């Protein structure tokens, strides 16, 4: 059953990605609409697949790389659907859906570890921590996608290149606003995620902060986004500088996610 849902999700995301990529070269209201429909249907199927899996293993499937990647992908799609409702930016879909699709494909290629849930993970603080962390990652992923689009559009404007992709990309100010909104959502989530992670750590091993690589890199990520938001609110960092910093922040975040093993869980 889970497998079936997963395959349906994968194929729907595949079609949605193809449709969104077509949106880059073709202007058509209908195409935008269908891309969105496919993606939303895929999203629902993805949720069902996740619930079904969680039911099977009796906990949220966030304890191995396969489950985590799939959940990351789910959250990214969710955040994108949210912003698309508000700002109508199909081109953002062209940048974001391929990422979600690739994550899901990688997840499907990995082997799920059907291991016994270690006792340290049997804490509500852990689930709370993990959920919030993934939600914040997704918001930052959108911020990064928007930042890339901003830099491309800015390059076109500065180089006076007015055809093709330039016509399709949204206005700079819209991109800047989405970027700010997604950071404003992601940052509080990350903050609470780190705090709840620390509490969980205390419950599990009796220490709030272990200074293991995962925690350290999380803190670096937090500082980058803190600096970015602070700069924006006080001296008005925006545009190119904010975009570059947002991309750097996401790269560091990916290092934290993929590169750093957690000393507690692994």
């Amino acid at each position, binding site marked *: 059953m889970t497998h079936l849902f997963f395959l349906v999700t994968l194929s729907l995301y595949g079609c949605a990605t193809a449709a969104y990529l077509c949106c880059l070269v073709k202007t058509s209201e209908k195409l935008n609409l269908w891309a969105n429909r496919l993606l939303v249907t895929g999203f629902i199927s993805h949720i069902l697949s996740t619930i079904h899996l969680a039911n099977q293993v009796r906990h949220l499937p966030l304890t191995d790389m396969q489950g985590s990647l799939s959940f990351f992908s789910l959250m990214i799609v969710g955040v994108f659907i949210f912003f698309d409702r508000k700002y109508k930016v199909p081109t953002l879909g062209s940048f974001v859906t391929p990422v979600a699709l690739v994550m899901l494909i990688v997840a499907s290629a990995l082997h799920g570890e059907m291991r016994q849930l270690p006792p340290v993970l049997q804490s509500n603080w852990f689930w709370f921590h993990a959920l919030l962390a993934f939600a914040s990652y997704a918001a930052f992923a959108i911020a990064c996608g928007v930042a890339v689009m901003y830099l491309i559009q800015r390059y076109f404007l500065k180089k006076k290149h007015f055809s093709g992709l330039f016509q399709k990309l949204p206005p*700079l*100010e819209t991109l800047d606003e989405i970027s700010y909104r997604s950071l404003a959502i992601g940052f509080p989530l990350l903050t609470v995620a780190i705090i709840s992670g620390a509490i969980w750590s205390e419950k599990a091993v009796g220490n709030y902060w272990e200074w293991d690589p995962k925690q350290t890199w999380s803190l670096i990520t937090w500082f980058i986004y803190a600096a970015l938001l602070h700069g924006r609110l006080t001296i008005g*960092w925006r545009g190119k500088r904010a975009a570059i910093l947002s991309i750097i922040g996401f790269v560091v975040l990916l290092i934290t996610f993929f590169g750093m093993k957690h000393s507690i869980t692994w």
Partner: protein
Amino acid sequence: MNIIVVGLSHRTATVEIREKVAFSPNLIEKPLRTLVALEGIVEGVIVSTCNRVEIYATTRDIAGGIARIKRFLADHHRIPLETLEQHLYSYHSEAAIRHVFRVASSLDSMVVGEPQILGQIKTSYGYAAEYKSSGIILNRFLHKAFSVAKRVRTETKIASSAVSVAFAAVELAKKVLGDLSDKTVMLVGAGEMCELAAKHFINCGVKGVMVTNRTFERAERLADEFKGEAVPFEELFQHLHHADIVLSSTGAPHVIITPRDVVDVVRRRKFRPMFFIDIAVPRDIDPKVEDVDGAFLFTVDDLQEIVQANLAQRNREAEKAEEIIDQEIGQFYKWLSSLGVTPTIVALRNRFEEIRRAELERTLCGWKDLPPDGEKRLEALTMAIMNKMLHAPTTALKQAGQGGRVDLYVDALRQLFDLQTGFQGDDELELEE
């Protein structure tokens, strides 16, 4: 009945010729009356714009009709026909229909897709309708042309992109600033192009306008016109940070806005982006302003480039428009050729015969005690009624002979008795602006 077109346009004649042949709308009644009084010409419409003068007419004698209209144009404007003739083109039948559909759809315009031509043809047709020089065929024809033009405009992107420099500026500003409704425009200097661009920005709903000029009175006058605020030229930099869009076109011999000014202004705006358009020659804004983060500078050349690209796109869209026109021509031509007297009489007889036969069969079917010669007598009776009833309209049609009346009769008959023509145009018979 045939449709013919005689005329000249920017493609065949220079402006010197075109202005000599133009008709003034105030004095259009007399030429319209002369036109339809010409031998063999039944209906006529005169279209006269700065880019074209064309006469649409219906006639039974194509060659004669075209020759007489050419002569009429020459005589009316007192130009020797030999001089005029080389600039004139003429079309008849299907080619004439295609030509008018293309003109109305703005495919034959100097700037393909420009929207004025349709309005101009509607106005010209309005005069013809007012002075009754157009009749059943040209009425239908032009309404069809209007609906084709509308279809072209909605189904292709022929008129969707900016092809004027001023409008391109607005489009570009939207690409940087997004929604313009909370943005302010600053005019530096009061050149004509700047004013035009400012008007476009105001139409797009910008929040405010500021105007500055070396002579303050001029600035005040413009500010009044735009319901904006006049700023003394010396205080430009005290106010510049309020502006999101700066349009500059002073006659100053040197640069007015330097990168250092802009760095300062952008900082005061907390790095919210600024959009500069420099229309002045020599330039008002140092090109290095481009390097300032948050400032986007464009010149007339950049705008011109956008316009060129959009024009190229319009030409590609024009091909789709030609396909639409192809479809519509067939439909209209079918209606036009059904207007002959003989096909109408045949169709009318067939319709009556159909009814007679059906009713006769129904009556005979359930009649049990019908006398032996009953069927024959009923046949003769219904036949006689039908022939008597058809006699008057048939004669009237044949006698209506060559004038415009025959088309009116034919069309009325076809509509009243629902004789299929394959043309549905009646629901489009309203003139909308």
